[in-house]
C-alpha cells in the first residue's frame, strides 16, 4: 500500500514533534474538543489519540454524531412507520438501523405487509426508490448536520417540483454552532480549544464559529480528516494559544472557503427554518434545529403522516451518553463501558453509532500495557 503524504509516518512524526513543543510551553494542560464524530473516528482509528496524549494534548469528543444526539423517540417513530403501515419503505443511512429502542431497532423490526427498511447511502437513492415503486410510500429518515442537510433538502425540493407525492422526509436536522454555545455556556467541560468539523464548515464557512473566539476567548481550527489534516489543525490551535490570539483558523483551505458554500446555504434558507430541538444529553436548545417551512409541507413526513416524534431520549439506566456528548465524561470512565455496555450489547447510542465516542474508544483502543514504541 503506497502511503500518501497525509498518512506518511514521517509527516505525522514531524507534526507531533512540533505539537509536543508547543504543548509543553502552553500555560495550562491542553484539552481540545473535536466536535465531529468523523474526527473522533479518525483520531482513534489512526492511533493518534495516544500519540497526541504523549505529545501533551488530550482530545475530548463532542456532540457531533447525528445518530447519537437524535432521541430514541425519532427512531421509534421511524420503526412504527414501517411496522404499522403497509406498502411503506423507510429509507435510511445504515447506522441509524442499529439503535436499540423500546421497540427494538430498525434492523430487527418486522415490517408490515409489503413494507421494508432500505439502507441507502444517499437521499437521492431514496428518491429513486420512490420513483421506481409506484405502489409504495417512501419516507427518508433524514438525520444529519449541515454537511448532509443540503443534500436531503435538495432531494426534498426535487420531490416537490416533480410532484413525487409518494416521497417525504422525516427530519432530524441538527446544527453545529448551537450545541457548542450550550457546552461553553454550561462551563462544565474544561476545553482549551476546538477542532471544527471540516465538511460541516465546507457548507457553513467560518463565521458561525467566531463567537467562540470573541465571546469565550477560545482558539479553534477548521480541520480535515486525514491524519496530517488533524495534526495541522491541532498545531494551529496550539499556535493560537502560544500567541494569545484566539480566532477561527482554516486549516482545511483546499476544501473550505471562508464563506462556505453559499449555494448550499441558499437551498437551506429556501426550504428550512430554525426550530427548537431537544438533543440527547444536551437538552432543549432554542433554534438549534431546522425543519421544513410550511410551503414544503407536502414533503414533510411529520405533517403528512401526523407524526409527533417523542422527545424521550429513552436512555437505559446507568447510560451516561449525555455526559459523553457534553464532553465531560470520557467513555472509558463510564461504569458500563466495556462491561455491560459493549459493541455487541450496547446500552446507548454512543456505543452503537460507528462514530459514537464510546464505540470508537472501544473498537480502536490501544494495547493494555502501553509500551514505548520504537521508531
Amino acid at each position, binding site marked *: 500500500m503506497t502511503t500518501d*503524504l*497525509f498518512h*506518511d509516518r*514521517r*509527516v505525522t*512524526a*514531524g*507534526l507531533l514533534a512540533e505539537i509536543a513543543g508547543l504543548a509543553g510551553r502552553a500555560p495550562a494542560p491542553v484539552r481540545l474538543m473535536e466536535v*465531529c*464524530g*468523523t*474526527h473522533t473516528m479518525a483520531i482513534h482509528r489512526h492511533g493518534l489519540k495516544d500519540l497526541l496524549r504523549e505529545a501533551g494534548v488530550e482530545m475530548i469528543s463532542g456532540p*457531533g*454524531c*447525528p445518530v447519537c444526539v437524535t432521541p430514541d423517540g425519532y427512531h421509534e417513530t421511524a420503526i412504527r412507520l414501517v411496522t404499522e403501515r403497509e406498502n411503506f419503505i423507510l429509507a435510511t*443511512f445504515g447506522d441509524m438501523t442499529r439503535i436499540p429502542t423500546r421497540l427494538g431497532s430498525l434492523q430487527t423490526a418486522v415490517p408490515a405487509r409489503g413494507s421494508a427498511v432500505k439502507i441507502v*447511502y*444517499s*437521499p*437521492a*437513492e431514496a428518491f429513486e426508490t420512490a420513483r421506481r415503486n409506484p405502489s409504495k410510500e417512501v419516507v427518508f429518515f433524514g438525520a*444529519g*448536520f449541515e*454537511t*448532509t442537510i*443540503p*443534500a436531503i433538502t*435538495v432531494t426534498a425540493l426535487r420531490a416537490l417540483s416533480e410532484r413525487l407525492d409518494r416521497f417525504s422526509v422525516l427530519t432530524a436536522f441538527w446544527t453545529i454552532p448551537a450545541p457548542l454555545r450550550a457546552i461553553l455556556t454550561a462551563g462544565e467541560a474544561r476545553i482549551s480549544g476546538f477542532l471544527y*468539523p*471540516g*465538511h*460541516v464548515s*465546507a*457548507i457553513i464557512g467560518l463565521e458561525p464559529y467566531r463567537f467562540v473566539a470573541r465571546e469565550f476567548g477560545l482558539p479553534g481550527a477548521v480541520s480535515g*480528516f486525514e491524519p*496530517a489534516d488533524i495534526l*495541522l489543525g491541532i498545531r494551529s490551535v496550539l499556535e493560537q494559544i502560544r500567541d494569545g490570539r484566539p480566532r477561527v483558523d482554516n486549516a482545511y*483551505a*483546499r*476544501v*473550505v*472557503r471562508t464563506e462556505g*458554500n453559499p*449555494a*448550499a446555504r441558499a*437551498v437551506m434558507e429556501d426550504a428550512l427554518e430554525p426550530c427548537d430541538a431537544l438533543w440527547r444529553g444536551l437538552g432543549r436548545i432554542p433554534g438549534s434545529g431546522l425543519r421544513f417551512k410550511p410551503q414544503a409541507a407536502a414533503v414533510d413526513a411529520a405533517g403528512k403522516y401526523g407524526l409527533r416524534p417523542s422527545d424521550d431520549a429513552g436512555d437505559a439506566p446507568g447510560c451516561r451518553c449525555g455526559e459523553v456528548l457534553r464532553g465531560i465524561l470520557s467513555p472509558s470512565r463510564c461504569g458500563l463501558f466495556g462491561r455491560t455496555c459493549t459493541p455487541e450489547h450496547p446500552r446507548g447510542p454512543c456505543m452503537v453509532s460507528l*462514530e459514537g465516542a464510546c464505540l470508537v474508544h472501544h473498537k480502536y483502543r490501544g494495547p493494555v500495557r502501553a509500551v514505548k514504541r520504537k521508531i
Partner: protein
Amino acid sequence: MCLAIPVRVVGIDPSGETGKVDYLGTKIGANFALIKDIRVGDWVIVHAGFAISRLDENEARETLDMLREVQRAGEG
C-alpha cells in the same frame, strides 16, 4: 457525520445536475446541485452522493508542499 472524499468529475448528464465521479478508478453517480458551474475535470468533495465543495487546487498544492517539507525534515 462527515465522510467525504475528493473525486474527479468524469461525466455530466444533460440536466447538468447529476453525473459521474471517479475515485481511484471506481465510478459512482453524484449530484452537482450544490456546486455552481460544474465541469468535467473538476475535483469535488462528495458526501452522501452530493458534491458539497470544489477542491481548490492551489491550496491543495500548498498543503502538499508543506507536508513534503515536514517529511523531508523528518528524514534528516
